[in-house]
């Protein structure tokens, strides 16, 4: 057993994180707020050149052949700069779903060209799961993989009706999506459709959980900085235990949430059909720390934290939005207690870490 990431995984993360840190500043995020697209096309090009859009495609398809464990580190890095673009979603939700469809021989030959297009940056795909009433950054997608009931549909942009909606988070570009679930666009239904949708929900939950960790870290570092710089009573406000403890509590929860998310990524990677529990746990743990981080970050900033000018709002509002995406707290808690309380649940010390192995 080894709960750590490999040197290569961390190195790739550091490379991408390095680019994100220089390019995605609070100024550049605020600049996006007043544009329609909300995106930075130059950054897209740089990320493409680094291969992040090929990350989760197998080498046989021309991809980098990495898995959810590699990707989860990148998703966290996206959160750590509050990246507005849905890079993590494209990489971790849409790509694996496309591969899954292709491997099952579904999609009538449409999938391969889409995968090629995603890898060379020409084609933009998004996943609309029924659990999410809105799709983020839908305006410039070429294809939408949309669920309805247990059906999965592959829809070209002109087959859907998009109605823009405003998010509490000015970085996001929401739309509600209407489409006609017709046989023409249907990729899968019945058990297969349901399995694909469930897999995408777990990927989505994981992606958001990882971003929430990054966002929490961002808020902690902003807060640590501010409480050193801000003086009251003749010393930095961070010198007060009451202030220190607010942030220490976040740091503790954050470190405890990290292995939970890593474990969920592992399970999604090696045993996706058994990932519900792990993903729900990850989403819950990450949401909890992120909500706490947002609350304490504002608190330690005093009135400054309540202003539009203060950058705390960038990450805080993202956290408030993502907390409800891909299943809110109620949804994920239900998945856990329904599983635990079923009559033949596998309980007892021998199952503490799952049956036989960690992945259970």
């Amino acid at each position, binding site marked *: 057993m080894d709960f750590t990431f490999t040197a290569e995984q961390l190195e790739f993360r550091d490379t991408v994180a390095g680019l994100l840190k220089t390019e995605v500043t609070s100024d550049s995020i605020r600049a996006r707020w007043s544009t329609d697209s909300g995106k930075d096309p130059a950054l897209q090009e740089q990320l493409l050149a680094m291969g992040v859009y090929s990350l989760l495609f197998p080498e046989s398809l021309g991809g980098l052949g990495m898995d959810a464990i590699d990707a989860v580190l990148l998703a966290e890095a996206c959160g750590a700069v509050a990246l507005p673009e849905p890079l993590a979603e494209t990489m971790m939700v849409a790509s694996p779903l496309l591969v899954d469809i292709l491997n099952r021989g579904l999609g009538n030959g449409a999938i391969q060209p889409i995968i090629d297009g995603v890898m060379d940056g020409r084609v933009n795909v998004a996943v609309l799961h029924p659990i999410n009433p809105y799709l983020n950054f839908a305006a410039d997608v070429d294809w939408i993989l949309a669920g309805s009931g247990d059906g999965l549909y592959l829809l070209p942009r002109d087959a859907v009706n998009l109605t823009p909606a405003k998010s*509490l988070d000015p970085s996001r570009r929401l739309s509600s999506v209407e489409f006609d679930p017709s046989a023409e666009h249907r990729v899968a239904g019945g058990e297969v459709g349901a399995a694909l949708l469930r897999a995408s929900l777990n990927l989505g939950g994981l992606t958001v959980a990882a971003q929430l960790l990054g966002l929490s870290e961002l808020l902690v570092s902003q807060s640590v900085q501010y409480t050193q710089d801000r003086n009251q009573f003749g010393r930095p406000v961070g010198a007060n235990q009451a202030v220190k403890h607010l942030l220490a509590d976040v740091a503790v929860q954050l470190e405890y949430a990290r292995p939970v998310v890593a474990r969920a990524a592992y399970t999604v990677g090696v045993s996706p059909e058994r990932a519900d529990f792990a993903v729900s746990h990850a989403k819950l743990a990450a949401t909890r720390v992120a909500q706490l981080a947002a609350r304490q970050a504002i608190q330690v900033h005093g009135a400054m934290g309540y202003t539009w000018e203060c950058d705390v709002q960038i990450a805080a509002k993202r956290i408030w939005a993502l907390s409800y995406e891909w299943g809110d707290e109620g949804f994920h808690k239900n998945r856990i207690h329904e599983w635990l309380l079923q009559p033949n649940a596998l309980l007892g010390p021998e199952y503490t870490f799952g049956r036989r192995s960690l992945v259970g």
Partner: protein
Amino acid sequence: MQLEFSPADEQFRNEVASWLRDHLCGEFAAIRGRGGPGDEHHFVDERKAWERTLAEGGWTCIGWPEQWGGRGATIEQQVIFNEEYARAGGPGRLGHIGETLTGPTLLAFGSEQQKQRYLPDIRAGQAFWCQGYSEPGAGSDLSNIKTRAEWDEQERVWRFYGQKVWTSLAHESDFIFVLARTDVSQRGHRGLSFFLVPLAQEGLEIRPITQLTGTAEFNEVFFDGACCSPEDLVGEEGDGWRVAMGLLGFERGVSTLGQQMLFQVELDEVIRLAKENGASRQPALRQRIAEAHIGLRTLRYNSLRMLSGEDDGSLSREAMIYKLAWSNWHRNLGKLAMDVLGPEAELVESAPYELNRLQSLFLFTRADTIYGGTNQIQRNLIAERALGMPREPRGDA
């Protein structure tokens, strides 16, 4: 102990309720339930007109002595008024600061001349006030005030230089009470004085600060030679800290009960929504709704107890715990509202950034634990003043 209201009080309640029913309609129907926390920027002119209507009906400043146009209302009656006002959906009170802070402070510390000059306009809903305490360097450490008041012998006025910040509603107000340093050789709470200053004048600039909500309720107020007359110094020169602290004591006032009625209205809204959108079927949310309900009851009982005590403007133990208790309760309610909304919590009403009621509630409650003394400062006060624990050391940076 005697927990019922008397028949006379109940009759008073009917009188308030029926007056509000008869007047909070017609041209004022649109402002029902508006202008509360997070919504202060809406319907300002209408709400000022409403203040004048309230005044004509004799419903402003009811707790003031009759001599100054009040009703000399008992604590019970003030409680009842505030409850009925909130129940009727009375709009956020723009006259609040003048009525509950400036007025009582002048009654306690002001000169006869000051009372005559300022109280009638507050009572008539004609003059609106804001609170000039905080500065960029004086937040939790309020005594670190740097704004100077200099005596101008030639013009025989006090002149102000410096800056206030986070001044709520300054842009909608006529006057500001200012805590300023009259003796710059002194530090901390010594050498401060308390002034009444008109806002519309040369040498005074108000700049709104945009909040998390995208709206601007508070402001920066810059002083560069703005002035007030010597008659507008409250108390003695150098006595500002005592006056300023006395004023904060009045904040415990009866408005807390009206505030709780507003909380009740918000909680009812959350419950209604939970039933409507099915969130009430989630066990975790059901429990939090129950927690919210009993939490609010607890606040109410404590307030009633606190108001039963002496009304001398001094901080009682009960008053000391109140800010911490309600701000935490309200912050949790904000979060509960969002969780009940679920994924809809994220959606704002169209351009440019119109928040719905519950989103405003959520965002505004992020500030509840900050203004009027942060949670951390409240806990320090409870530990040091109520429990007598050792004071924290000051730095000397």
